[in-house]
């Protein structure tokens, strides 16, 4: 945890900057500890320990601005470092739009760092033996090899495909991050968070020598909520389900996107809603504020202040207070992400600088939804769609920020009558973001609770697939 001495170092940086001629300054002090334990094929493979402590400074002087960082935190070194930083700032061009946020906009309720209930005190008791034992719990390698040694191969549930295991990689990581931010307008904020994560990647080989890999992960702020045991079985299932892929003819199909992959289709919207993209004329969402750009009933919220959930935060990197607010509501664009600089540049009212914890709300085309009444799981959505392509992962691609035109490689399965028929390979989707989202059929209720972005399974009409 950041101690009082370290907080006094951060405040010293502010004082030093003002003393040496800065008109304003913000300092972000971060302390983090990360411990990881990795196993390869049931045996310990790598142990890493990381401990970081660094200062990031934003310095304003004579209508000019610069950013600086160091992990050398001795006061005499910092004094010299800040002096050089201010000298450099003074060499830059004047830009009066560079200012600290007004004190009235910064968070007042992030005093201890613990307000959002994202800290698990048990991390302090964890030691290397504990981490090794937890990593071992992720692994199912020994169970699999026992079966394999008996029969010479493994058999996939459901499909009956024979395969053998090439490798199992398991990783358990626990991390702690404490961030203290203060500025010369009197803002002080703190965010403290722990994270416990489990990861497994399985690589298998089918009877014809083709390799397939699948991975699964879970991550939570509290260890008690972490699903250690489920990772390997799910990773193996993902690998095995890919055996025997077939090419599918290109064309226009209904596309269902699994919740584990769906954020790829949401992130271009947030990039385009950022005032920086708009001001630089590189946004397909320019001049859309207050306009209906998406289907009626479609809503994305920023639930930044949900206690106990990863991704929540009380303030952004400027110290500006976050709030739970709609980004797109009933198809209408309700908010751009506008930091202080962009507000000063564009004259638009400032908001927050970017999304914290987006939540895509349940949606079913042409139907009025009541969340309590609808359980829109992936299976329900596929049944609703009938046939099409279920996308479970994206492989490369891009979205043109200026036009919204996109092309992504996809992997997944063909489905018919709501049921998966076979895996597909080497397929691409192309289209335009605005058009894609206006062809939304459904947004589910199955977003993974552990994810920072609450994006459920999605379904779209008439997506162009190439193969």
């Amino acid at each position, binding site marked *: 945890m950041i101690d009082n001495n370290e907080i006094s170092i951060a405040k010293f940086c502010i004082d030093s900057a003002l003393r040496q001629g800065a008109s304003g300054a913000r300092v972000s002090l971060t302390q983090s500890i990360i411990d990881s334990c990795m196993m390869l094929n049931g045996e310990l493979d790598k*142990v890493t320990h990381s401990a970081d402590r660094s200062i990031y400074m934003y310095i304003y002087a004579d209508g000019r601005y610069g950013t600086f960082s160091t992990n050398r935190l001795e006061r005499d070194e910092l004094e010299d470092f800040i002096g050089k930083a201010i000298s450099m700032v003074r060499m830059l061009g004047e830009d009066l739009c560079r200012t600290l946020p007004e004190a009235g906009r910064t968070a007042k309720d992030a005093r201890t760092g613990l307000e959002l209930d994202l800290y698990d005190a048990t991390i302090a008791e964890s030691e290397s033996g504990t981490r090794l034992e937890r990593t071992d719990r992720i692994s199912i390698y020994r169970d699999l090899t026992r079966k394999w040694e008996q029969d010479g191969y493994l058999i996939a549930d459901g499909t009956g495909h024979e395969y053998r295991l090439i490798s199992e990689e398991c990783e358990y990581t626990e991390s702690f991050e404490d961030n203290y931010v203060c500025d010369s307008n009197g803002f002080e904020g703190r965010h403290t968070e722990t994270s416990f994560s489990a990861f497994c990647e399985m690589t298998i080989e089918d009877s014809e020598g083709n390799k397939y890999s699948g991975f699964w992960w879970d991550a939570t702020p509290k260890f008690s909520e972490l699903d250690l045991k489920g990772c390997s079985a799910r990773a193996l299932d993902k690998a095995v389900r890919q055996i025997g892929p077939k090419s599918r003819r290109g064309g226009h199909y209904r596309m269902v996107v699994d919740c584990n992959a769906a954020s790829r289709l949401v992130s271009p919207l947030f990039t385009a809603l950022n005032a920086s993209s708009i001001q630089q004329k590189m946004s397909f969402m320019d001049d859309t504020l207050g306009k209906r750009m998406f289907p009626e009933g479609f809503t994305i919220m920023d639930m930044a202040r949900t206690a106990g959930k990863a991704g929540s935060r009380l303030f952004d990197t400027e110290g500006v207070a976050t709030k739970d607010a709609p980004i797109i509501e009933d198809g209408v664009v309700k908010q751009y992400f506008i930091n202080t600089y962009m507000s000063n540049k564009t004259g638009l009212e400032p908001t927050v600088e970017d999304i914290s914890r987006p939540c895509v709300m349940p949606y079913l085309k042409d139907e009025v939804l009541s969340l309590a009444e609808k359980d829109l799981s992936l299976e329900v959505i596929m049944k609703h769609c009938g046939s099409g392509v279920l996308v479970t992962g994206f492989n490369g691609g891009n979205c043109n920020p200026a036009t919204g035109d996109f*092309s992504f490689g996809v992997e997944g399965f063909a489905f018919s009558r709501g049921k998966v028929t076979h895996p597909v390979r*080497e397929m691409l989707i192309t289209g335009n973001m605005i058009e894609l989202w206006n062809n939304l059929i459904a947004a589910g209720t199955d977003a993974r609770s552990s994810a920072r972005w609450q994006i459920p399974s999605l379904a779209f009409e008439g997506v162009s697939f190439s193969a």
Partner: protein
Amino acid sequence: MNGNQYYLNIFKVTENQLKMLTDTALAHGGDFSDLYFEYTTYFNLLLKDEVVSSGGFHTDYGVGIRVLKGEKTGYAYSENTEMADMMQAAKAASAIALGTSGSCTYAPVRDKTYDLYPMAANWRARSAEAFLPFLKELEKEVFSRDTRIIKVIARMSDSVSDVMMFNSLGELTCDTRPMGSVTVTAVFQQGGKTENKTASRSFRMGAELIGPDLVRELSDEVVKGIDERFEATRPKGGQMPVVMGAGASGILLHEAMGHAFEADFNRKGQSIFSDRMGRQVCPKGVNVVDDGTVAFNRGSGNYDDEGVPAQKTYMVEDGILRSYLHDRISASWYGVPSTGNGRRENFRYNPIPRMRATYMESGEADPQGIIADVKQGIYVDEFSNGQVKIGEGDFTFFVKSGFLIENGRLTAPVKDINIIGNGPQALADIVAVGNDLKIDNGTWTCGKEQSVPVSCGMPTVLVSSLTVGGE
């Protein structure tokens, strides 16, 4: 390069203390340990909306300590070089040897050494003031090239890293690594449509990089092909012959094949090439190289991050798979010398096999003749966002620009499409290699677990069939 004492002074240690640290790291029975000291200064400037209104500098300092027991790794680091803190990190890393079975022999490395990036002008000796006129001149020159330009964004950054490596074999290796990078983006508007283009250059060299030649080169490139970009459409998708233009197409080689040649994936049996050593993987005459010895190249290093001298490695020679890319761990496991590919982002990370400058050597075909031989296909010359699945070998690349090929001629411009294929299949489907190898000196960064600078290159190459995404 400076003498060893220069580096010992920076990190405030003696050679005896280095030995004490590696001894401590091996206290529990590890086979090998090494220390990686790093002091990096990083500087950047941003020109936007006609003013250099943002910039800064950053420093990073610390030491990473690694212990190997067999192929198992223990790793810890300290952000200061006080002996007590380093000893604590050494003890943390040493724990890998507790309860771990197996052992490997790690042999000393002796090879030719290089001085690939002497700095005529040290970045650390220059202030921001020296570079402001350059960015303004670059902006002015770009604006002057095309009246449709409405915005110019220019960035420059430099870094200098002092690196000192010591290992339990007693090898002490030091290096000073400069890097200078400039990127310019122009936003164009025409008839209500907006397009943008970016050009960049990055080299391991000193501040002599900054000058009028670079202004001219970047300005030429950032406006080149913009007419076609406005006219470009998405072609009809499907399987077709693809001609990859010389230069930036090398990123396809990096992603689709290079990663699968990295020895860690092969040691674990995960790569599609893990059982193909010594076998024909592409047509005779094709040579694929990963090279750490190209002077001033972004991917080069006098030594890798395990103290192994720079090398040029033929992965594929005359169509036959000859070598994986090794760090010390995989080299020991395979019983071969390290190829000098053990690289890391900084002292916070343990080294793993990584590419440097990856390219295909020139063949004999005339590039125009290659295009002339294609009846119906696509020519691509600008890529981004490549991705590969190591086990399956499937890759996807986003094509920023290219042309249709109709009856042997480049016709309609195309953009915003993907090409998708399978690495080994694409290698096997190479039917012509041009005589025009070009290394692309853009700001390529590889993101396998950690970010490291790389570069890539290709001659003009024809692949008989790949899937092209389109309307």
